[in-house]
């Protein structure tokens, strides 16, 4: 629940009044009476106080004692070893979110982990944002000035920072040139790349490559994101924290309250996509798929996202989505602030099906979140999504609006199959994409690179 101090405010809703709409000819069911919808979604003006990070034992009911025992065993021989994580932001974004949970857990296992954030001016972050987009494949002309800005801020940070730890982990390209300190550092250096490098802008990649090749190892989030490099490359799937506000179990009464506030009718099937309003998430395609599917099955669509208030392109996409949705009262569009994790959690849990119809994707942690909640999930076969959704086993992969519409219809009319997908999906996350699995990977990597403990190898070696 939100803190008592939080203030409720109201912001404009996409639909200020319900309009009668033409029921499709083939509609299976008449629309039942719906609860009155809030015309303005309830959001909070300021973020609530941060929730304290959980302890390792708090995960016991989720992953079991044996899993935690394994982590403690792996950590035992690493006792006293130290790590440093370096990234470019302390708040916001998936990397900071992950480090906020990972660092205390490693500390609890007596692997002291420091977390440093590089500093830079607006010019630096403009350059690194452009690099980020270029590495994702966008057109970009790398200028000498951009290179100089990148190198100057990296050098400034390098002079300021010390690297005495046994392992230094540099996250993403922004601080990559800190590798210049490797020669004066006793530890092993690892580059953790959270970006899809499968089709990078060649100029930017060739500029960064000489830095990356100086690391002892690189880590990617999917096999398909890796590059040909002369250093070992490891696969670390991104992860979710099952105890975070976005993923923890919720009281049914809270889920109902959130649905009531947003006018979501829980007596009818709910199809939900949670994503910022970004063309790469194809929210317009989701609306089109929903409209096609609803010719055959009764359902509502919830598009819950953010990014429209602080991103001009997001606002444009939101406008397009509203235009395509028209005055359809069964399409509920919510532009939520980033601190509405509990509400997003509730909407996912209330959903009959979750969709993530991305056209391009990093790993797609919203898919992981949906799978963890046991929801039958339909998602675009892009980026890291196929690592999570094994078609027809842990979810359904789609490649088009029509395919998405068909799978919505299929899952809504085959609830037993949908439920099995949901069960498999949750197990898949439990085995591969939880925070505890991430801790295990870091401990294994530390053991491997520092050559600590029992030698690693295959069972036949």
């Amino acid at each position: 629940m939100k803190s008592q101090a939080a203030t409720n405010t109201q912001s404009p809703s996409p639909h200020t009044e319900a309009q009668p709409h033409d029921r499709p000819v083939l509609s299976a069911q008449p629309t039942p009476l719906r609860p009155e919808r809030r015309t303005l979604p309830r959001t909070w003006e300021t973020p609530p106080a941060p929730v304290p990070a959980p302890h390792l034992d708090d995960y016991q009911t989720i992953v079991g004692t044996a899993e935690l025992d394994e982590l403690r065993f792996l950590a035992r021989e690493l006792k006293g070893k130290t790590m440093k994580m370096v990234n470019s932001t302390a708040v916001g974004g998936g990397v900071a979110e992950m480090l906020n949970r990972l660092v205390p857990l490693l500390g609890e296992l007596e692997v002291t982990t420091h977390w440093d954030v590089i500093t830079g001016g607006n010019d630096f972050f403009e350059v690194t944002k452009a690099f980020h987009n270029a590495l994702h494949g966008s057109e970009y002309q790398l200028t000498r000035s951009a290179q100089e800005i990148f190198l100057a801020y990296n050098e400034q940070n390098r002079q300021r920072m010390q690297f005495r730890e046994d392992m230094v982990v540099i996250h993403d390209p922004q601080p990559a040139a800190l590798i210049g300190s490797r020669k004066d550092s006793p530890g092993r250096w690892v580059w953790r790349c959270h970006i899809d490098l499968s089709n990078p802008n060649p100029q930017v990649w060739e500029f960064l490559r000489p830095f990356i090749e100086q690391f002892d190892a690189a880590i990617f989030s999917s096999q398909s994101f890796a590059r040909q490099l002369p250093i070992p490359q490891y696969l670390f799937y991104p992860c979710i924290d099952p105890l975070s506000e976005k993923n923890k179990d919720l009281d049914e009464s809270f889920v109902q309250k959130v649905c009531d506030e947003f006018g979501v009718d829980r007596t009818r099937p709910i199809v939900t996509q949670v994503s910022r309003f970004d063309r790469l998430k194809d929210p317009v395609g989701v609306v089109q798929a929903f409209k096609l599917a609803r010719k055959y099955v009764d359902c509502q669509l919830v598009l819950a996202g953010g990014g429209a208030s602080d991103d001009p392109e997001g606002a444009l996409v939101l406008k397009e989505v509203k235009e395509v949705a028209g005055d359809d009262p069964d399409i509920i569009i919510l532009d939520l602030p980033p601190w509405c994790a509990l509400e997003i959690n509730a909407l996912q849990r209330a959903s009959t099906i979750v969709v993530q119809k991305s056209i391009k994707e990093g790993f797609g942690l919203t898919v992981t979140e949906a799978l963890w909640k046991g929801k039958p999930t339909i998602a675009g076969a892009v980026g890291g999504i196929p690592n999570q959704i094994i078609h027809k086993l842990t979810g359904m992969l789609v490649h088009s609006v029509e395919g998405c519409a068909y799978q919505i219809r299929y899952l809504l009319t085959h609830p037993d199959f949908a439920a099995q997908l949901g069960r498999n999906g949750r197990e898949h996350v439990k085995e591969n994409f939880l925070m505890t699995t991430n801790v295990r990977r870091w401990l294994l990597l530390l053991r491997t690179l520092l050559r600590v403990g029992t030698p690693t190898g295959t069972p036949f070696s």
Partner: protein
Amino acid sequence: MTTTAQLPLSRTPVKPFYFNTSAHLLRITTQKANTLAELLDALRVCPDDSIFQHAFRTLQELHFIREGFSNDFAHWALTARNEPGLAEQLASVDVREFTSLGELRERFVQIVEKHLQLNPADGRRMAEETFYFCAADIVVMPTKFVAETLPDFAKGLREVSVHSIHHHFIEARLRIKLMSNDFSQWLYEDVGLTDIARALNRIDIYTVTLEDVRKQMLRIVERSLA
């Protein structure tokens, strides 16, 4: 297991059974395949760890799935290449019939070679998704469970992680180089329970989940204790 007289259940095992488990760190190797010809080339030269990863580890990573999945090569043939015949052939490879990765690699190579002889055009056709060869580095760890009696053994079976079940029941044959597993070997050699050892070894790992395997093993062991 050939001939050993069945010994009474009250007999103390010659030596205790130490439940271990293993953790895996995944490496992305340099091999990848977009066509069947490339898959064949990579199958011939990839490290043994990659064969292990894609044939044995699939059963662990997806231990909760009962149907439609046996190894990564078969899955790729079906989903990325739409070649159900080849997928069936690759899926029929039962890792329990191999005690060395060299033999297992050879079996996969033979299947792909034969398919390409019969369907030469398939060799150049691009797959919808690339097959990336990975490999696993493994750390073996002890657990707190040690069985000095059969009831201890049942308790261990009930409480260890599925990783431990995979380690002793599936990965084991590469280590002990026998068509058996650690549990059956202990029951046979150190407890003298030949029939129970055989019954455990007959459990089909491809049609059930690893939790189902655990339940079946427990049923067999507990029945013998009743």
